[in-house]
């Protein structure tokens, strides 16, 4: 049987500053959504007589520069790629030992009548959204069902968060742990965070008043407007987390109706991360609305 085989892509131009761990915010597919039309179309050259095929693609890297990526692949025809010559030879070996006198009806080899599946511990896909970064604080919102997940170091089944040996090393997470709890207390609206239990010790922010919250550090604060009504803080955190460490997420909630007022703030630890988030997400289509993401204007006081 003839099979074609790809003999290793050879990236010619490559963005060297790309981090090893891809976050979805840096994934190529997402890149293309709003900016693709600005790029020259993908070119495919070949395959020529040697089976060399070139694919030329253009992409924006994270700094917004255009990068040309040439992928060269060779396609080869392999005869009998699946079976080696000697394996074919072995096929015709004479039976020996007990196999010589095997009864026709012995049926030593049977195909199972039962269809056996690789049973997933969770439904496939339900885990797909789970963050792969260990220690991702977002884990607390989605792994609510898994017992004993340390929210500080992300270890499962080893210890509770309060007993985490790495507690002191972890970045302070109260910044956004207290907020969902506060909004939970203030509103009856349902959101993805509702299922997650927030222990009393983490509810320090619940006692704080709204004005107290507003007096927070406004450094690297990004204002997000034109949010859909369904957007809650965890959603916003999920959206902005890939760009870097987030210290606070806040979505304005109407006290009377409990609905989102359509804007929120995200504070980043690093200013560069915030700038990247603005570059990437301003004009991004989120929940059928076009987001507006900008620097929050400094407070008058």
């Amino acid at each position, binding site marked *: 049987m003839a099979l074609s085989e790809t003999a290793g892509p050879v990236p010619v131009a490559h963005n060297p500053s790309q981090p090893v761990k891809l976050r979805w915010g840096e994934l190529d597919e997402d890149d293309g959504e709003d900016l693709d039309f600005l790029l020259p179309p993908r070119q495919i050259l070949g395959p020529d007589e040697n089976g060399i095929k070139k694919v030329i693609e253009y992409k924006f890297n994270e700094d917004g520069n255009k990068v040309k990526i040439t992928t060269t692949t060779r396609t080869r025809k392999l005869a009998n790629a*699946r*079976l*080696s010559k*000697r*394996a074919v030879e*072995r*096929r015709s*070996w004479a*039976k*020996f*030992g*007990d*196999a*010589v006198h*095997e009864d026709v009806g012995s*049926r*030593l*080899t*049977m*195909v*199972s*009548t*039962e*269809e*056996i*599946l*690789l*049973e*997933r*511990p969770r439904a*496939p896909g339900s*885990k*797909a959204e*789970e963050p*792969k970064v260990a220690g991702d604080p977002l884990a607390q919102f989605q792994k609510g069902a898994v017992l004993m997940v340390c929210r500080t170091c992300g270890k499962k*089944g080893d210890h509770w968060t309060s007993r985490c040996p790495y507690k002191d090393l972890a970045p302070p997470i109260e910044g956004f742990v207290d907020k969902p709890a506060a909004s939970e207390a203030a509103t009856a609206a349902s959101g993805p965070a509702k299922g997650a239990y927030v222990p009393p010790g983490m509810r320090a922010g619940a006692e704080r008043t709204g004005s107290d919250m507003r007096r927070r550090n406004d450094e690297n604060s990004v204002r997000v407007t034109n949010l859909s009504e369904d957007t809650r803080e965890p959603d916003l955190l999920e959206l902005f987390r890939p760009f870097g460490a987030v210290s606070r997420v806040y979505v304005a909630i109407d006290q009377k109706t409990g609905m989102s007022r359509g804007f929120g703030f995200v504070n980043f630890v690093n200013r560069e991360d915030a700038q990247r988030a603005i570059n990437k997400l301003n004009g991004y289509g989120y929940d059928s609305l076009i987001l507006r993401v900008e620097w929050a204007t400094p407070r008058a006081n």
Partner: protein
Amino acid sequence: MRPILMKGHERPLTFLKYNRDGDLLFSCAKDHNPTVWFADNGERLGTYRGHNGAVWCCDVSRDSMRLITGSADQTAKLWNVQTGQQLFTFNFDSPARSVDFAVGDKLAVITTDPFMELSSAIHVKLIARDTSDQTGDSILVIKGPQGRINRAIWGPLNKTIISAGEDAVIRIWDSETGKLLKEADKESGHKKTITSLAKSADGSHFLTGSLDKSAKLWDARSLSLIKTYVTERPVNAVAMSPLLDHVVLGGGQDASAVTTTDHRAGKFEAKFFDKILQEEIGGVKGHFGPINALAFNPDGKSFSSGGEDGYVRLHHFDPDYFNIKI
């Protein structure tokens, strides 16, 4: 997938091994006849008759011409793979537990059990190219570890021998001098008997399974612990996919407790884990006894499991297995 069931053995399976091309599957069981099967359709090619005890382990040479088996009848035997003919018998004073050909097939390491006041030992034998030159002399005998040595394999470039067994300590020996080079850290290492040991396709790391309900991934040179996979039952067999970053653990409750409990409680599944994330991917059910042996086809597209129930189950993966996402 619809597994192929091979019922050639009368007694529990002990070991499974594919040849390098992945077209033959060798199975060992507590009955006395190691068997070779075609790995694609499960047809029986032949049996190797001559052992007089449970066969614990086997290995096949790179050119698929020689088979070595270790048996509880206190011998290890060399076989002609094609004809089933016995080529040579290594005699010991205690049961042979594990056998492994070195890279190049010029050496073999055989471990023997502690028996009648004899301590366990690791023997290194020269394998002659021509069977008429073959001798039974050991070029090296390593003694020291207490209790059974369940597996001994060759390390990178045949320079070391990696052994593991009942004392739950993994050791690396110099294969020329027999000197102990490294010992696994007691803190991070296994707590109970190590039952199985599987090398990665490139030999750079290996996986051990233990009755302490975990499997651990180790660096073959530095013996540093890389990953730990935790399950809820003792691990009898481990295998590593040569294609994807998957490891498979097989096990189940103790064989003596099987008849007293429901088969669903036994958890006789082959459990798939992501090698890097240490997350469980899924389980393949089917055996109605603990899994004693696991092997991956070298092409990574099928695997087989052998159980206490005497069956070998050969699984060819469905196409969607190759795109599983965690």
